[in-house]
């Protein structure tokens, strides 16, 4: 067992240093999806190595960036609309939703995390009311082969809200986040507030969108902070066809 974990930790150490390639990189991705999330020893090792990798940056002497860099970044900031930030809502719409979408164990998994988001209680209650409206229908997104983790989309006529819920969802690759896309007639558009990372495997997104206008839903991995015009189809991917609006 120790030998096995030493081998895994070798891969994790290489992974956080961005040193893996070929079969090692594939194996590390598999382990990070299938083994590490459920193994306390490996989770601990991964967290420790990630912290070391973050601090290694400090071994280099600091250097004053050119004076023109900050104004350039300010321009970039000004050109980026302030989104309604919804990170906290990832764990907001909690236990009651589990029964509606059939993700067994979701409410147990959420556990005390609901209490960490007290400020989200009002939104949670509103969302749950909306979810129980007549015609609301959950749709299961199918993983495109890399993971058994489930994602479910919930929307309904007149709801103008979409919820994406999941458990045991692996972390995206380093430097990436998951991105939600909606498709119509084979063309996908990026959902503006649809970038997310799981919280200990849990995903619970609340989005303002009229899902009735679309016939497909897709989740891909994209680089953090990028705003791609089309899905990359790299890494973990989930997909489903949505019921057409009446």
């Amino acid at each position, binding site marked *: 067992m120790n030998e096995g974990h030493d081998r895994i930790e070798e891969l994790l150490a290489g992974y956080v240093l961005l040193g893996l390639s070929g079969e090692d990189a594939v194996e590390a991705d598999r382990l990070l999806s299938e083994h590490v999330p459920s193994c306390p020893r490996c989770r601990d090792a991964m967290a420790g190595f*990630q912290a070391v990798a973050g*601090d*290694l*940056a400090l071994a*280099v*002497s600091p*250097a004053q960036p050119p004076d023109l*860099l900050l104004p350039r970044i300010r321009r970039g*900031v000004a050109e980026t609309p302030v989104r309604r930030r919804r990170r906290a809502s990832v764990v907001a719409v909690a236990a009651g939703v589990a029964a509606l979408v059939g993700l067994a164990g979701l409410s147990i998994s959420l556990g005390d995390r609901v209490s960490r988001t007290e400020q989200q209680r009002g939104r949670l209650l509103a969302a749950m009311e909306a979810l129980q409206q007549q015609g609301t229908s959950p749709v299961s997104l199918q993983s495109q082969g890399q993971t058994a983790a489930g994602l479910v989309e919930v929307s309904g006529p007149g709801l103008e809200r979409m919820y994406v819920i999941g458990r045991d969802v692996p972390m995206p690759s380093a430097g990436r986040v998951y991105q939600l896309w909606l498709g119509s007639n084979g063309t996908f558009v990026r959902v503006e507030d649809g970038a997310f990372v799981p919280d200990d495997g849990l995903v619970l997104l609340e989005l303002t969108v009229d899902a009735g206008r679309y016939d497909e839903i897709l989740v891909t991995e994209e680089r953090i902070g990028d705003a791609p015009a089309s899905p990359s189809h790299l890494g973990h991917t989930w997909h489903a066809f949505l019921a057409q609006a009446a």
Partner: protein
Amino acid sequence: MQEDDRLDLELHRRVSVGDRQAFEGLYRRYAPAAYGLALRVTGQDSLAQEVVHDAFLALWRAPEAYDPGRGPFRSFFLSLVHHRAVDTVRREERLRRRAERASNLERGLGEDVAEEVVEDAYLSTRRKEVREALRTLPPDQRRVVELAYFGGYTQARIAQELGIPLGTVKTRTLAAMRKLRRALYRED
């Protein structure tokens, strides 16, 4: 939790609701460290600027990518910079002159060349601890970590460069990372 980590958390929270002043607060705290790192990895001013520019805009566009439950903001953000720098240097590999890069790598980690840069005291303190931890590593182990982290080399490439088996690179890397972890986080 350190007071400086709390300040980072507060600034990040404000960035998450679109506060530009807080964003610039994080820029002032981390731009010198980020630029120094990007410069070391890429070896070129223009590439380093692109890396830091992209990393800060990524933070502005997707602040939710940082989960406070997974460690200090400092680690998250500098890892983001490192990741982008390595991506960049691998993409630009053909433009990089080996001699120039080798010279950068050989520059002593313990010898500050830019200490006049204004930096928060806690970063300066942590910097000394990290350098000291690196110094305590056996040279063979330190070398593989430096080549991977600061050189952007894959382990396969390191094996090739040093003329040692890939398995040895992996073993040295793991041993080094375990020692660094113990040294930096005071584990038994």
